[in-house]
Each structure stands twice: as C-alpha cells, then as structure tokens.
C-alpha cells in the first residue's frame, strides 16, 4: 500500500515506479491482443498517458486495474482487424538433447511455425488468455483479473484456444 504518498500516481517517482513494475506485462498483453509490436507499444503509451491524466482521480491501488481497463477498451480503429501476424521469437529449441537428427529439428521448426500461424488465427479473446498463461505464466485467476472476466470464462477461452490450435495444426499436417 502506498498510502503514505498523498500525491499518489501524480507523483513522478510513483508513476515511474508503477511504469517499471507494470508496463512490460501490459505491453505483452496488448501484444497478444493485437499481434503487433508497434501497436502494442503505442497502446501501452496511451494507457499510461491516460493514467497520468487521471492520476488525481485514481488511487494507487486502483491504478493497475485502471490501466487494464484502458487497455481492454483500446481497439484498433485505424487498421482493419485482419489476420494478425505474430512474430514470436523462439527460445532455445534444443531443450534436452543435442543429438537430435536434422529431420527432427526441421520437424520442430515446422511445428513451431504452424503453431505460430495457428495462434495468429485465434480470436483475440482466446489468444490473449492463452498467451498470458503460456508466456507470462499467469494463473487463471490473474488472467481473469486482467481481462476483467470470470475465472470460468478464462478456462473456457483456454479450452477453446487449445481445441482450435490442435484442429488447425492437425488439419495442415
């Protein structure tokens, strides 16, 4: 609790501290939502600027949910909502063994590619929930908080996302 600071979020130091602890997660979320880095950056900035403009009315403990509300309300109005292209960088693929065959590695690459395009084809709601879990390691209840929905709804979205992903990947074998 930051009750000791009367100026709250309006205090430069509080604001910048708040940015440091929340900006990255917010940007990731917006990235899942839009599937585009530039738009994620832009929407992150806008959310924080909105927070600053309303700093006097937003107590520090409500600031996080304020940010996500703004983020959830942000829509892409300038660009048509066509198929988003995700550019996820892969982590080190050589997880347990080094002696895998080239064929196996190629297969792995192919699968990764397929998975990425399948994720890009998910609905915005499913993708956001799924990636918040897979990449940010958020618990379902945390995801529910971020998306401002119930835990049950999160589970439905994750379930639906997995169904959709498998279907797409298996169809284009």
């Amino acid at each position, binding site marked *: 609790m930051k009750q000791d600071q009367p100026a709250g979020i309006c205090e430069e130091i509080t604001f910048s501290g708040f940015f*440091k602890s929340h900006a990255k997660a917010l*940007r990731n979320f917006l990235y899942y939502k839009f599937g585009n880095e530039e738009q*994620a950056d832009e929407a992150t*900035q806008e959310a*924080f600027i909105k927070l*600053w403009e309303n700093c006097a009315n937003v107590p520090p403990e409500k600031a996080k949910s304020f940010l996500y509300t703004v983020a959830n309300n942000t829509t892409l109005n300038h660009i048509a909502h066509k198929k988003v292209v995700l550019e*996820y960088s892969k982590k080190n693929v050589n997880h347990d063994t080094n002696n895998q065959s080239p064929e196996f590695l190629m297969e792995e690459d192919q699968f990764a590619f397929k998975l990425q395009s399948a994720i890009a084809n998910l609905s915005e709601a499913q993708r956001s929930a799924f990636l918040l879990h897979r990449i940010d390691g958020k618990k379902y209840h945390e995801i529910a908080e971020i998306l401002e929905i119930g835990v049950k709804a999160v589970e439905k979205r994750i379930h639906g996302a997995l169904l959709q992903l*498998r279907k797409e990947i298996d169809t284009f074998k």
Partner: protein
Amino acid sequence: MNEDVTLAKWLNDEMDDRELKDFMSTPEYATYSKIKEFSGRLSVPETDMAALYKNISDNKNKANQPRVRRLNPWIARVAAILVLALGATFFLYATHTTTQRAEVAGRETFLLPDNSEVVLNAGSDVNYREFNWSGNRRLELEGEAYFKVAKGQKFDVVTPFGTVTVVGTQFNVKARNGRLDVVCYEGKVKVTSGTDTVLLTPGKTVAYLDGKNLNVPNAKEHKPGWLNYETYFSKVQLRDVISEMERQYNITISLKNNPQPNSPFNGTVPMNNLDMALDALLPVYHLQAKKAGNTIILSAE
C-alpha cells in the same frame, strides 16, 4: 450446463491421474502435448522500455500543459488598454483643477459645485477640484474673494499666508502681498496663519501681515465694501493701497518717495471713480498726482 473446460484443466496441471491417463490415451494428445511444450517456449520480442517511458513523459507533460488555458492575448491587451485608459481618465478627472480668474479691473462671480457663491475681486485666482467637491471643500485663493458658502462639511480657503476654515457662512478673504485679511459676515470662520488661530464670529475681522496679527478694528458693513466698489482699508501700507488701485483701475501708479512710510492708511477708497479715489488718498499723505496716459505719477506737494 457444464461446459467442457478439461483442456484448460490439463494445461494448468489440474487433472487427476485418472483423467490424465484417459486424456493421454486419446489420439489428439500428441499434438496437445506439443502445443503445450512449444507455446511454453514462446516469448515476446523485447522493446526499449526506457524509450517508451520517455515518450510517455514527453506526452504527459504536453498533456498537462493545455490545462492551463491561455486566453486570447488580445483579450489581455484590450483589457490592459481599457484599464489604462479608464485609469488615466479617472486620474485626470480626479486631479483636474478648475481655475477661476478675475482679470485686472474685472470681477468674476461663479458658483462652486455645491452652489456656494464666490465673487473674485480684480486680479484674483481660485483653484479647486470639482471631483468629490462635497467631500473635500478646499480651494486655493490668491487675491481677494467674497464667499457665500452653502451648508455642509468644512470649507477651506487656502492662501499663501494662512488658511481660512468655515462652516456655512459668508466671509471675505483677502490675501495680498504678505497680508491676509478675513472678515466674517455670517456663521463662523476659523483663520489659521502660522501658529496663530482665530475664530471669527459675524462682524469680526482679522488681519495678518507676515504672520503677525495686526489687531485691526472690526468691519461695520454686512458685506464687503468692494462688492459696491468701495474698498475699506484698515492699517494698510500705502504701497498696498496703491497696488489695489492699480488692480481695480488697471493703471500704473508710480510713487518715487513715500513721505510717511510708517503711517498706514485707514479709510475707504472708491474703486469706480479714479479722481474721487485719488482725492480720498492723496491729501492724507500730502501727495499730488500727474496723469501721463495710463500712468499716474505721485509726488510730494
């Protein structure tokens, strides 16, 4: 209505052993497992958070500025000009001094803003401010004037040789050549010259020469004689009598030597007939007059 969320349970490692065993035996499990494994390895491309924060800082400072609404600068300019113009007008109006003057050989009768009446004798000036006159009845007199003051607050006549203060009264003030004569005809008049203060009641007269009380006798008339062109002199130096005649008749009177410099003049001199005036004055000092145009030369008989 229980919707199926088993895949979500599985992904979150919430399945019990039986459920998991059943799930693993399905043909789709291989793909699900791969999805789980591969999606766990994904990451989001990094961005320069410091640059992002800088953008926000720049923007939030900008965003805050428009809240200070700048008025159209012309409004301020016009307002300033109006204030200045009004101020200057008021200042001029408030400090504007009205001057009334009676030229030599002339008279001037006028009313003050409160309808007090002033009659200026020849060659006299009065200055006063019309602004807030009833709150500050004060005028400056050089020369001689008769006042008929309307009732009201105190009324000051400031002369170089003393101040005359009255409340609703009729009085005459003469301030000439270092000498101050005040005659009260009605009401009360307070005369201050130097450190001396005298309160005059009707009929009382006071005269100061260079700040010294001359103890002149009281006037007998109910109005100053000069209003009817008869000037009464009491203990007046000859030169001052001559000055008065010069003013009244608009002439120059030249006196080479005063044969009796230490005897002041007492008496009445007509101011509408020069010959009679000279007749009233000259015998007292044994002088004779010679007229040369607009100049009269006085010399011993």
